[in-house]
């Protein structure tokens, strides 16, 4: 195996991991602040891809679609938090798991009823089609773009959480909701905002993955499980953990494809089990 091939395998894994990173930081954000596991995350991912595909179909602008999809998903997320999830706080994990699972079923079946079992076309935009020379190999431009978009998203999230008042409230609320409220912060808005942001990230992940993997009602099922694994490995609620674990899992899986393809889909879970055995709180988890 030549060095070029190994490098190509590495970059490929990083890009696959990048999509997990985007989806997993959304999941982790929601868990870290709302203390619920969002089982509708995969369905939101799928819906984001649909919205982006439709937006491209109507307007012809990929960039616009990349903006429209997460924004409308954020709005939907806030609605779901206000209407359903927010009413279940304090009732234990099971309620929110069941509720978000129900939301996921409604979304998936609703999409099938509205648009059928066959998804819309979603092509790589013309300006990102084709390949670039990375020196050691040619690589699809669009996949590099996904990597760039992920990096920008992670930076944006960091800025939002650590450099804005809203971020400050969110971090405060995640540590001590009661005290935060006592200090005059409207905690319900903070929670809705965090859920909306998490859902927007799922939608953005779907919009980015759509041109690579196709758009269809069940596209969120695998990614839900995979991003959950990433969050567990990285540490529930840790953003840095989700980023590191996402890339790590992407690269490890990529090399498993190379040397033992049969194990490529088990390796995710093996990594998770190993993490839980050695460091039950995850790589960057605190508790």
């Amino acid at each position, binding site marked *: *195996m*030549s060095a*070029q*091939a190994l490098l*190509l*395998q590495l970059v*490929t*894994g990083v*890009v*696959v991991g990048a999509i997990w990173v985007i989806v997993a930081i959304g999941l982790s954000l929601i868990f870290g602040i709302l203390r619920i596991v969002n089982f509708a995350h995969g369905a939101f991912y799928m819906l984001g891809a649909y919205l982006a595909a439709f937006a491209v179909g109507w307007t012809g602008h990929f960039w616009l679609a990349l903006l429209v999809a997460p924004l409308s998903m954020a709005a939907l997320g806030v609605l779901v938090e206000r209407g359903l999830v927010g009413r279940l706080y304090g009732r234990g994990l099971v309620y929110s798991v069941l509720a978000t699972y129900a939301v996921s079923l409604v979304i998936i079946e609703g999409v*099938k009823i509205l648009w*059928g*079992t*066959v998804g819309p*076309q979603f*092509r*790589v935009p013309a300006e990102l089609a084709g*390949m670039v020379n990375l020196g050691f*190999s*040619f*690589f*699809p431009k*669009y*996949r590099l773009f996904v990597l760039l978009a992920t990096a920008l998203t992670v930076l944006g999230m960091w800025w939002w959480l650590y450099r804005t008042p809203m971020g400050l409230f969110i971090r405060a609320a995640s540590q001590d909701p009661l005290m935060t409220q006592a200090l005059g912060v409207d905690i319900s808005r903070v929670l809705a905002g965090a859920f909306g942001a998490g859902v927007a990230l799922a939608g953005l992940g779907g919009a980015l993955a759509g041109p*690579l*993997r*196709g758009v*269809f*009602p*069940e*596209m969120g099922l*695998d990614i839900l499980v995979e991003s959950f694994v990433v969050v567990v490995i990285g540490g529930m609620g840790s953003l840095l953990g989700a980023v590191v674990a996402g890339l790590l899992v992407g690269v490890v*899986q*990529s090399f498993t*494809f*190379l040397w033992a*393809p*049969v194990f*490529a*889909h088990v390796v995710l879970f093996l990594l998770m089990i190993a993490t839980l055995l050695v460091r039950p709180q995850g790589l960057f988890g605190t508790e």
Partner: protein
Amino acid sequence: MRITRREFLRGVVAGGTALAISGTLRSIAHAAPREPIRIGFPAPLTGAFADEANYMVQGATLAVEEFNRAGGVLGRPVELLVRDDRLSPDEGARRALELIERERVHFLAGVLSAAVQLAVNEVAKRHRRIFVSTSQSDKIVMPPDFSPWTFHEALTPWMTSTALARHVLREGRGKRVYILYADYAYGQEHTAAWRRVIGEVGATLVGVDPHPLGTTDYSAYLPKIVAARPDVLVLNNFGRDIVNSAKQAVELGLKQRAQIAVPIIPTAAALEMGPEVLADIVCASSYWWEVQERIPKSKEFNTKFSRRFNRVPSDYAAYAYSGVRELLEAVQRTGTTDSDRVAKAMEGRRYAHYKDTQYWRACDHQSVQTVFLLRGRERPRGPYGLFDIVATVDGERVIPSCEALGHR
């Protein structure tokens, strides 16, 4: 709102009466002489093959509607009961059992995935019911899966991939072949056929990788394939898997380096891939609508289908149409819905419902038929003019002998 016990009882009694009355009405309706002939039709309406399943349901629907418009079969209306098998063998077997036991269907037809097909076949065989299969499988025509009541309208992977591989490797000595296949019956059977032809012509197999059914991201498989420098890349998968694996292989420039070959590219998948991916990829098929230039029967079928559904029929739409039509014609000829007698009437028969003549081989109930080899066009002719027909292979030349399949 609270419901008192009395109200509750009243509700239950009223509901029960309504049910009883509707039941009586229904049995009166059943007593009429026109009890429909029911065909159960499991298909993967959800999952990676959903697009093609829709085509199949449309093909079967067209056949049923034609008979019903002409007054039904044996003076009875025909009813098609479509069920979602969710691309799972367990689910398929359950649906088939339900269709036979609860819905009292007379026959089964349909199914798209090889693995689901074998599960449905087992149920049909146990109930000695005719099953016209429209899914590619080798095992279904071989003992022990072979059933005297099962007819295999689709091509087998053996036939498809033998025709395709011999064409692609016609000057194949020393050619390097890499195979990526979906790890279940369909992918394995096509891969077996390729291995055999590779041996026949003296080509070299430089790599074989399985992938799970329904994989969406193939990027991690591809660097290895690039590094192996194959002359031919074979993608033995189906449905959405073809779209994603071919798209991503082309993205990485594999089309410039290797001839990409796929056993069958379903029409829905071909449309989704678009010419930039599809161009120059070769595949085999039981049917491509553009054969209408040489086969009048196909022109007739295309017209009927597109008038009804506003699109050209796919190969699987044609399988379903032909299989259901052939079954109902046999019922008409024999004047019975008895599976034993209808099966006898089908064995060995020659028929042509949508292309040139094909026939049911008596030993294994395989439909022996023409295989078309197609190549994706760089510039499609109209929205559906995606493929050039590059060769036509007589089914007799690629079908294994009865003895080779284990029939005596």
